């Protein structure tokens, strides 16, 4: 997983864990609660979708990275 990439599985889980800790410590204001829960639901949905993205989509992402990194030689395979 590339460091600068938008949302990674790890980041998503970390954020979910943070939200859970926050809720468990009851530091969440009742007004923010809905926002947190909504965010959590969004993250779960995002990850689930990404897990089932088509292979072609994932490969496309790889191809894009390829174009960025011109120095890489892919002659042999």
């Amino acid at each position: 997983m590339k460091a600068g990439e938008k949302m990674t599985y790890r980041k998503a889980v970390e954020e979910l864990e943070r939200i859970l800790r926050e809720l468990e410590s009851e530091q969440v204001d009742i007004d923010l609660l809905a926002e947190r829960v909504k965010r959590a639901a969004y993250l779960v949905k995002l990850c689930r979708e990404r897990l089932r993205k088509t292979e072609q989509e994932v490969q496309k992402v790889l191809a894009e990275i390829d174009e960025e990194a011109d120095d890489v030689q892919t002659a042999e395979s």
Partner: protein
Amino acid sequence: MGPAEEAKRPYLTLRELSAMVRSALAAVSDEIWVAAEILRINVHPQSGHCYLELAERDEEALVAQMKAVIWAGIWRTESRRFETETGRQPSAGMKLLMRGRVSYHDVYGLSFNVLAIDPRFTLGEIALQRRKTIERLEREGLLDRNRSLPIADVIQRIAVISSENAAGYGDFLGRLRSNPHGYSFALWLYQTQMQGERAESALCRALQVCRAHAQRYDAVVIIRGGGSQADLQVFDSYAIAREIATMPVPVLTGIGHLRDAAVGDRVAHHAFATPTALADFIVNRAAEFEDRLSLLGGEISGCARELLGRRWQEIVRVAQSAEGIVRDRLARSREQLAVSWLALGRDARHLCTSWDARMEMAAHRLVRAASAMTAVAGASLQAVHARCRRASAWCASSARFRMRGVLRSVQRAASAGIAWGGHLLEKAHAQVLLLDPKAVLRRGYSITRAEGRCVTDAAQVAPGIVLDTVLWRGRVISRAERTLKGEDDEGRGEDDISQGG
């Protein structure tokens, strides 16, 4: 073995020599165990016999060498067993412990006829070799390098090092693509030769190429071609182990071994017995991640619900206490009201009863007074009535009496009156008769009228006036000629008048 010198003839035939050697070899013709390194090995394609060149070294220098043969029937079973046990086929450089006997063929010469191979010896040798390689890697700090890399929660972008038509690769692909969760995986294949003499260098190169792109992948997967176990020894190679160890992303191996892990497995991040197991690991890891997601999501929503619930309870509690206070006050007010109501009722009833009593008393008094008054009035009325009756009776009788008297006197007076009246009437009638103008007129008197008026004075008449003179019988209309005045002329006047009339 040098040629024998002793002979009856000054020489031996070659055949005799062979026989001699054969008999001399009878001393070692029993089955014996021999350990040796394979220098060369060749299986005859038609016959299936295996021909070997065995050797022994001392510090790399050959100190002994001998041909060996494993007949096709034995080779088939022994080589299979060996492969199963060791994960590799007998090959050059490998040390074998063989049971056999020395045989000498007149044409083919001396050779060691192998009857059985003990794979355990080779295993021990392999293990030793591995141990040496591992120690070296450890010294160089490479042994746990790959393993210490963080591994992605979801291994989705995968570089595969394998050969495209290898059975293992097919299994791996099929397993990934038909995963029951519907996850997607992106695979990039770095094709390489996994078998044969050049396998090591080819694999090494593939790994080096992959390393150049490694950052794009979540993991590098090495899948062995499948089928034969024999090419496993490649993965004990130090060069391959080094490539794996220094890969910047986790390397997962599914090279299919049954016993001890190869060095390549040891340095990899995770090693699996089969490509299928490796695919399952990847799928399960994604599933575990999703489970974790679900769990986290569930816990978050549970927590949120609980928080909400607790807030709600607080609200309810506040509301309940407020309700309690209100209810308390209400109850108290109601009690007070009830007390007041009772008092009011009592007072009202009291008032009512006292009023009733008073009213009743007043009514009694009234009734009493009224009846008293009625009685009095009745009595006086009766008295009055009696007096009235009495008085009227008396009045009536005295009146009747008086009336009768009056009536009688009236009757008397009336009849006297009537008689008198008759007399008077007759007299009056006679007078009246005397005074009647007609009678007067009969007696020669006349009535002269001028202009409608009776003429009694000559002064009333002017000469020329028309006079109407009424006689006893008929009338005379005349005109006055002249008038005469004075008393004396009365007679004459009368005449005149009558004349005039």
